[in-house]
């Protein structure tokens, strides 16, 4: 089933990959004695790997095409059907709860801190998912809302000494307002144009923060922001790390509940209808202006809240934390996890943020691995790690009819 043509294609692919990766894989500068090292063997490895993977990909797609008639239940469907059993559901839920509660006590402070970051990306991903996954609006400036939240807390703390808990809702509101402000000029834009304008918006916010020294203290940022406190009580570092972790857990749970409810509400359906077809959506009586603005503002809320938490967690913020790269990472979380799928985005964030932390050894190749992972995902699992499963509804009339047929 592999033809000469496929072999030729794989060979060309290999050459292309060798060419692409040449600067990073083959050339290496020895900075101590300023010499260039040529690692020719790497070229061979890359070539062979690209060749083999192309062929494997081909075999996979051919197999899949032949097999398409018999639909095997996917792993997710199996898990889902198991979950319908109450006992299984409650025991797995209990296990998750136990792990979540015990995690900071079993793991080191460093691990806990990383898990907190991962949870923050879960919330960020879920927030962006409203805009990109539900609303179908490609948004490349999401980090700007994250910055709004962080600077809200940073500045309010610096000038007025407002505490973390008070700033949490304020950050959310400011971010939502920014969502609406961004929403207005882009109401008529779609697709590529929307992506470019949101990208620019993200950069504008960052550049303003970087250059408006009187307001945001420029690139040096704001330091010594207070960590979260309980009843005005300062905590020791180890305690505060755990406490921040539990705040992140709490906010993650809140986000999941709220967004799930939004999704299955009138508004959530309007967002999805807008993604599917704007003209039909309007013809069904949905005000598309309202749907877009709510999608942007309800998406921004979560970035605002996480911004406040970020400022409290790191105690230091500057514009460098809110670059376009940050927006791209959050977008990757959504796309890889599964657009529109809440469990998908959660899984995506955990995998996407935790894996690099545990693979520090490969940190040089992080971008390369991300890129390859994205391409592979788009080819083999375009719906994401856990694609969205639509809710099914049961009706009394349905059951009666089936009973009648059986009788």
């Amino acid at each position, binding site marked *: 089933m592999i033809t000469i043509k496929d072999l030729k294609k794989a060979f060309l692919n290999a050459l292309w990959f060798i060419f692409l990766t040449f600067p990073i894989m083959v050339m290496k500068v020895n900075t101590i004695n300023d010499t260039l090292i040529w690692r020719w063997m790497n070229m061979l490895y890359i070539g062979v790997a690209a060749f083999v993977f192309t062929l494997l990909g081909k075999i996979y797609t051919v197999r899949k095409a032949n097999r398409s008639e018999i639909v095997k239940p996917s792993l997710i469907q199996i898990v889902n059907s198991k979950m319908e059993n109450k006992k299984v559901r409650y025991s797995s839920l209990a296990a998750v709860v136990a792990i979540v509660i015990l995690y900071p006590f079993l793991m080191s402070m460093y691990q806990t801190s990383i898990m907190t970051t991962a949870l923050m990306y879960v919330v960020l991903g879920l927030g962006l998912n409203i805009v990109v996954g539900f609303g179908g609006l490609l948004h490349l400036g999401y980090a700007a809302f994250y910055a709004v939240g962080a600077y809200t807390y940073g500045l309010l703390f610096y000038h007025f000494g407002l505490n973390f808990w008070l700033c949490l809702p304020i950050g959310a509101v400011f971010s939502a307002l920014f969502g609406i402000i961004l929403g207005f000029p882009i109401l008529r834009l779609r697709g590529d144009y929307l992506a470019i304008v949101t990208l620019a918006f993200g950069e504008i916010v960052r550049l303003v923060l970087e250059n408006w020294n009187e307001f945001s203290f420029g690139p040096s940022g704001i330091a010594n922001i207070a960590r979260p406190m309980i009843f005005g009580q300062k905590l020791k570092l180890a305690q505060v790390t755990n406490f921040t972790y539990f705040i992140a857990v709490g906010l993650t749970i809140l986000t999941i509940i709220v967004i799930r409810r939004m999704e299955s509400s009138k508004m959530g359906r309007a967002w999805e209808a807008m993604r599917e077809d704007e003209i039909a959506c*309007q013809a069904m009586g949905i005000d598309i202006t309202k749907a877009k603005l709510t999608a942007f503002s309800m998406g921004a809320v979560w970035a605002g809240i996480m911004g406040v938490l970020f400022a409290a967690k790191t105690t230091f913020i500057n514009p460098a934390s809110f670059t376009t790269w940050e927006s791209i990472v959050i977008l990757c979380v959504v796309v890889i996890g599964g657009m529109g799928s809440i469990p998908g985005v959660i899984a995506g964030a955990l995998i996407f943020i935790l894996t690099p932390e545990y693979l520090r050894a490969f940190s040089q190749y992080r971008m390369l691995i991300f890129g390859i992972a994205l391409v592979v995902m788009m080819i083999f699992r375009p719906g994401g790690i856990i694609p969205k499963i639509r809710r099914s509804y049961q009706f009394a*009339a349905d059951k009666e009819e089936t009973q009648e047929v059986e009788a």
Partner: protein
Amino acid sequence: MSDAPVLEVNDLSMVFGGLRAVDNVSLNIKKGEIVALIGPNGAGKTTFFNCITGVYIPTHGEVKINTSEGSAVLNGLKPNVINEKGLARTFQNIRLFSNMTVLENVMIGRHQSLKSGILSSVLRTKKNRIEEQKVIDDSYEILRKIGLEMYVNELACNLPYGAQRRLEIARAMATNPFLLLLDEPAAGMNPQETNDLVELIERLRKEEDITILLIEHDMSLVMTLSERIYVVDYGKMIATGTPEEIKNNKEVIKAYLGEDIDA
């Protein structure tokens, strides 16, 4: 008042650059009528629908409705506002929400009738839960009426073609219209599906107390269903009358068959 036409279109024109896609067309429909709009491809029928439903803002002319709530001028309003006023439509090139289920497609049609705000949906107040359950039940009821209940949980894109066209009608009916605009509802259907469609449209008019304007190329469907027919060609209205009159109209035959054939 009662015999004022429900839809009144006066001297409607739509110009795209140098093309007069709709050229001075006037039309009116009385309550409870089934009226057909026919004409060769590219005559401007779909553009006419788009002008009425707010997709395009007409270059010239007036679109007016007269209902029990009084008269209203529709030109310049947004499509969703026009829908709210009681006009619902289907699309020639099917525009379902493909990646949503059949039931969800219909539920979206119910959008206008729901009152819950963001906060009450997030808090799941009792009122909100009752309302949500009602949308689900109402939507299912509509699907049953249209005969699509066996597909409730299927994705819209996985439906057979005929069923997709019917789903477009179900979704439009969910918005609770007094006037239904159907753009080639039988296109691509087999004879059996077309027969079912005729039966459905007649039933809708009778049971739902609804007025229908339809664009269609299937002449047997047009002749059996409609009480009056308007014929357009190159954007201009060339004839109007009962099916009998239209069948024997020289102008119409010429437009459809070309000049060479002697009718």
